[in-house]
């Protein structure tokens, strides 16, 4: 490399990839139900879709993790989104396409995708 700008470009590119290792309470978390029921209902492609979309948009501050069964197996795949300072949002019956929209609308543009949430299914 021949300039400071190139150095900064590498830094910004890699920083996103290692953000997951920083301890930080102000981080958006996506938690996917990955018990047997979740996996059977297709949680794994959903998780991959989340990871791909986050990578595409360079959202290194968002972590993706799994959790066990919460008891509503018929609504799986279930995904919880925790935005710091806001209430948890629970999305149900997720698909890879829905995952992309959750990242774009909820995480990037701060609009909860109400029609996918558990609240809307109960109505």
């Amino acid at each position, binding site marked *: 490399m021949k300039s*400071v700008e190139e*150095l900064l470009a590498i*830094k910004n590119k890699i920083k996103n*990839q290692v953000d997951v290792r920083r301890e930080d309470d102000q981080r958006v978390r996506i938690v996917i139900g990955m018990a047997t029921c979740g996996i059977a209902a297709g949680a794994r492609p959903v998780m991959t879709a989340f990871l*791909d979309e986050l990578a595409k948009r360079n959202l290194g501050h968002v972590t993706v993790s*799994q959790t066990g069964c919460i008891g509503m197996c018929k609504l799986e795949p279930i995904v919880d989104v925790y935005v710091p300072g806001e209430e948890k949002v629970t999305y149900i019956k997720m698909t890879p396409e829905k995952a992309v929209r959750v990242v774009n609308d909820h995480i990037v543009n701060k609009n909860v995708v109400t029609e996918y949430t558990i609240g809307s299914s109960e109505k």
Partner: protein
Amino acid sequence: MYRSHVLVCGGTGCTSSGSHQICAELEKEIKKQGLAEEVKVVMTGCFGLCALGPIMIVYPEGSFYSRVKVEDIPEIVSEHLLKGRIVSRLLYQETVQTDGSIKSLNETNFYKKQHRVALRNCGVITPENIEAYIAEDGYQALAKALTEMTPQQVIDEISASGLRGRGGAGFPTGRKWSFAAANQADQKYVCCNADEGDPGAFMDRSVLEGDPHVVLEAMAIAGYAIGASQGYIYVHAEYPIAVHRLQIAIDQAREYGLLGKGILGTDFNFDIDLRLGAGAFVCGEETALMTSIEGHRGEPRPRPPFPAVKGLFQKPTILNNVETYANVPRIILKGAAWFSSMGTEKSKGTKVFALGGKIVNTGLVEIPMGTTLREIVEDIGGGIPNGKKFKAAQTGGPSGGCIPADKIDVPIDYDNLIAIGSMMGSGGLIVMDEDNCMVDIAKFFLEFTVDESCGKCTPCRIGTRRLLELLTKVTEGKATMEDLDKMEQLCYYIKENSLCGLGQTAPNPVLSTLRYFREEYEAHIKDKSCPAGVCKKLVRYSINDNCKGCTACARKCPVGAISGAVKQKHVIDPATCIKCGVCMETCKFGAIEKK
């Protein structure tokens, strides 16, 4: 994108307890479970908690698994990485709270009081990838120095920070650089002393293994400051992992144009080469080190001329320790005021210590200067195992001295340690409890210096040997009180007349133990006894009335020194006994006594 990163310690400590096998097993299991696209395995440098190795940490949860075994890996992968259920059974138990929740590693006693500057990337990044270092502000300090600062400003910043040499002597780094900068020459050199030789010290190794680029970056900054275009790192051949990673780092830095000609588009040229030392302790002394780089036998030469005037190949040279360099990029980036806000009046910043000896958390700690020995031993180190009492701590290895229990609350910095007869040294800190004999400790260190004396000057070559003979007499109960005075005289003679730092500091362990534990020396001489029960020649084993006559000890005794009939009290023949202690380990009734 990876949702989870698994960091496995690849430092020498964890490597020797099998972290490479763990890494291989981890990658195999992750592949088997189909997680290779989601979970990334990273081998890092030392985390510091070597006592708990092999160490593994899983992000984003930050779960800290300690003493991981290969057999545990399938469970960790299928439970934690696949299903998201942390295997709390295998976690470092201090991170598991009573309600079952897990606290951050930085909240544990070991890490809470630490402040990591020199070690900030160790255990955080992978040392074999330059981009990982760049992501943590790597080479930003070099960029700042080259594009925004003049060489004089770099030197002024380092001077203002109050950084002092971390190799032991504590010479102000900025002043050293300004001397070399002021001398005009067609060629100057920047050297790094990575010839860490003190028994029990391993902080330089950990920096080189965990964050090799920080040393390269700092040396380039130093080269810019003094006007040098060539650097040498003199490192032990016995540090194979460090040498390997340094070579990778140098190759990568050249490939990225961060070493070589026209760095970052400026007209600054700088390159670094490795020179491997064969492990002679004296080569850690600066003039001997340079003589060795030149290709000669590693022997010291008189100073002056100092290296800043006539150093390597007779050219102006600066020589700094690994840990000193590890602080430099942070000072350039965050400023002298930030650095000097840490520490005490005359010792700024932090210091890395290698904790060893009789302590629970053996490992590497970095603390602000001015922390007391009590905080290091009791809070960070977790105290002394088996409920024993703290007796003393040895700092500075064979060049340093001991700090007795009544000085445990002295804030540690360069000047306080000198005042109490020890020295900072490179940072080895060996903790001793009531079972350690101080005469024996002094003898241990002296044996080391006798072996390592290069032989060039007489006071060191012959003086240390005579001193060792006197010490041996003490440990065998053959010395007189006059010998004690002779020893002290000889110590001062060696200190004043030796050519280099090795001889000038070699008597320190004897002098400091004489200062604080004179009564222990006197017990050896007058009472012919070793209070700690270490010196074999003075120890007597005997059998008391607890003896049931089980004959177990008599059967185990390798020299047949124990006699006695079944169900009768046994007797040890002191003339035959070789004091191996097997009888004491064998006896179930506490009938064997050691005095």
